[in-house]
């Protein structure tokens, strides 16, 4: 009898240990998740007014030209993140990987340092740098290529997105560089040496040895950058001083969600945008992982 009791006690113990975590997850993750899902089928206006509207929130969002604009802006930003930001990060990481230990640490800190200050701070600083005639960025461009002194980066609809991309570039290049650097440092040096002895040129070494070796890191960085791009909010929000740019040129998906939920007070539509965004990120991330072949290798 005692033995049976003891066995039941032992069986129960792990669940009791797990209980606090499980409770927290239920309260702060599962319950809000279900609530948000239900909310996405409702229109609310305070505790007194709640109305079931079926798929109306989803159909409104999917046919809203502003949402289309937000998706377009986000997609362009994501493309630049991956095809401009990441190659620069990788390039810098490779440069630093060949540098001496002392200089490596110094430059790593310098290039990474924009990340220490946070998106809001960077947004505010760049909003001043982009000022026409007096902004440092405009002055720099004028003295470099005799163009851009009067550029209204944050007021001209065609220049807002480039301004966001430039700002993000300054901020995130160093961050991604750290991942690549870690990946490069784990590349087996004997493989590189063997390739060189076999007559491979630097490009061939990079393409056939280094890149396959850092593929898991690269996949991780690409997926995280894409997710980060789709969740972009604070940087353009602070850069554009709490607005979404002229003609919504600085409107991104999360900004659209914020606008709907907290400016227009339509929490139901905000929740619908949240679910659409989740679905988009899931599909894109899974596609990226699948394409990189990492999933296959893991099997």
């Amino acid at each position: 009898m005692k033995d049976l009791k003891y066995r039941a006690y032992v069986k129960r113990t792990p669940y009791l240990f797990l209980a606090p975590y499980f409770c927290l997850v239920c309260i702060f993750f599962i319950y809000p998740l279900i609530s948000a899902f239900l909310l996405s089928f409702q229109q609310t206006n305070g505790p007194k007014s709640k109305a079931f509207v079926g798929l109306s929130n989803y159909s409104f969002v999917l046919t809203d030209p502003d949402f289309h604009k937000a998706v377009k802006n986000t997609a362009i930003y994501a493309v630049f993140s991956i095809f401009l930001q990441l190659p620069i990060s990788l390039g810098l990481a490779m440069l630093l990987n060949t540098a001496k230990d002392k200089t490596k640490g110094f430059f790593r800190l310098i290039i990474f340092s924009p990340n220490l200050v946070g998106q809001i701070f960077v947004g505010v600083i760049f909003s001043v740098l982009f000022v026409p005639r007096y902004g440092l960025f405009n002055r720099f461009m004028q003295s470099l290529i005799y163009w851009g002194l009067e550029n209204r980066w944050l007021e001209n609809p065609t220049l807002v997105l480039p301004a966001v991309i430039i700002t993000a570039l300054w901020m995130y290049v160093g961050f991604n560089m750290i991942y690549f650097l870690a990946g490069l440092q784990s590349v087996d040096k004997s493989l590189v040496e063997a390739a060189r002895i076999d007559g491979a040129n630097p490009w061939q070494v990079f393409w056939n040895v280094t890149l396959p070796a850092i593929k898991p890191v690269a996949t991780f960085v690409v997926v995280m950058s894409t997710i980060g791009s789709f969740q972009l909010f604070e940087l353009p929000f602070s850069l554009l001083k709490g607005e979404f740019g002229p003609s919504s040129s600085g409107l991104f998906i999360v900004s659209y969600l914020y606008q709907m939920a907290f400016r227009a007070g339509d929490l139901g539509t905000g929740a619908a945008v949240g679910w659409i965004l989740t679905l988009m990120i899931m599909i894109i991330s899974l596609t990226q992982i699948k394409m990189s072949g990492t999933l296959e290798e893991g099997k």
Partner: protein
Amino acid sequence: MEFPYGKAPFWILVMAIITGLAMMLSRTFTNAGRPDLVFVVFAPRHYEAYLKLIPEFERKHNVKVQLQQVHQRPLQTRLQSALLADTDVPDMVEIMNPFMGAFMKGPLDDVGFVDLTDRVKAEKLDEKMVESRFSIWSSRGRIFALPHDVHPVALAYRRDIVEHLGIDVNKIETWDDFVRIAHEKIVKDVDGDGIIDRYALDLSISGTSFFPIILLQRGGRYFDSQGNLTMDTDITIDTILWYIRQSRGKTRISFPAGEGQPFYKALSDGIILFNFVPDWRSKVFEIDAEDLKGKMALMPLPAWEKGGRRTSTWGGTGLAITEKSKNKELAWELAKFLYLNKKDFSDRFAMLNVIPPLKEAWDLPAFQVEDEYYSGQKIGQIYAELAPETPPDYVGAYYEMVDGKTREVLIDGGVYYEKYGDKGLREFVTEKLKQKAAYVRRVMNRNVFLREGEVEITDANSSKENAG
């Protein structure tokens, strides 16, 4: 006796019990020390002014008032979220125009603020104060906040340069006069390097802040008093066209000086000579562009036609009492104490240059003082003379969206103008504005809480108050 799950879980449990008890106790003590009124403001200078006045109110009524300061944007979003989630809210809040609209999305019964209409009328405040100022705090004919200010707009200009150029501002009666003089005497490439060194006016190309000022002065508006959308009128179209011509292309008379340091640099350097300056901004100029003391002066806005309105309005603060407040009567008393306190008006004007909406206060000596910064002009008197003309600016639930969409037309029209010039511009702007208005109506139509009969979501021309 040993705890059956070991030492670590035992200490975790002990800590959980201690922190739980501490939280319960702190809540009990907080409730015991809860003030009779919690009042939240966003403007630091209002906070300082009220901090001095509230002790007198506390003594008089034997109550405790807690004053808090929160930045305007978080104040609006937090308050909105708290009202939506039915959680704790302060008893009284100062709200900035046009954020009030966000609280007016549902039926009047669901607005989280006390309907002050009957109180305002009983005390005849609608007669004692500038009537148009109630417009920004009203929805469907009901008043939900007490106006703190009037904020009439004047033009502040670089008197030294303007006089040097031989311009007599008294002869500028209309905007047509202003544009003509700007072309003749102001807009110039002084050093011949191909870059214009002097412009007449500060106008952002996106129309932020400035476009509504001009639209309101002209008699246009986004909503009428009943909350009907009136964004797509002929007045709006004409104003957009005027704004585009003055802010875009080679013949523009304005420069987008931005804000903060770059703006004051442009002002100090004489790149822009005239600026839209409501009473509150006149003090900001005094503080942020101190070196221009004695070089600036004020003039009324040029009218749209001779003898027309010479002012507009920019901004506004209102005091609202929340429906959840347990001390509504006390809150109303405090509102009156702060907003109708003649003793404070003089101090407030000296500190903020803001004239109150209470008309009888304008005769106070403080408003007749000569201001050295504005070349010895009596700016209190200037603003008080403009105040009765201040146009109404009715707020609707979708005010921010309408403002944004109208300015999108302004920007798209500006791009068109720079590409093709004046040809076809009116048709382009009219079409775009119709599209944007249709979009806003679609959004408004989705709102199941705007009860039938309360707001008619029809086209702008059906509004009886449509000035266009």
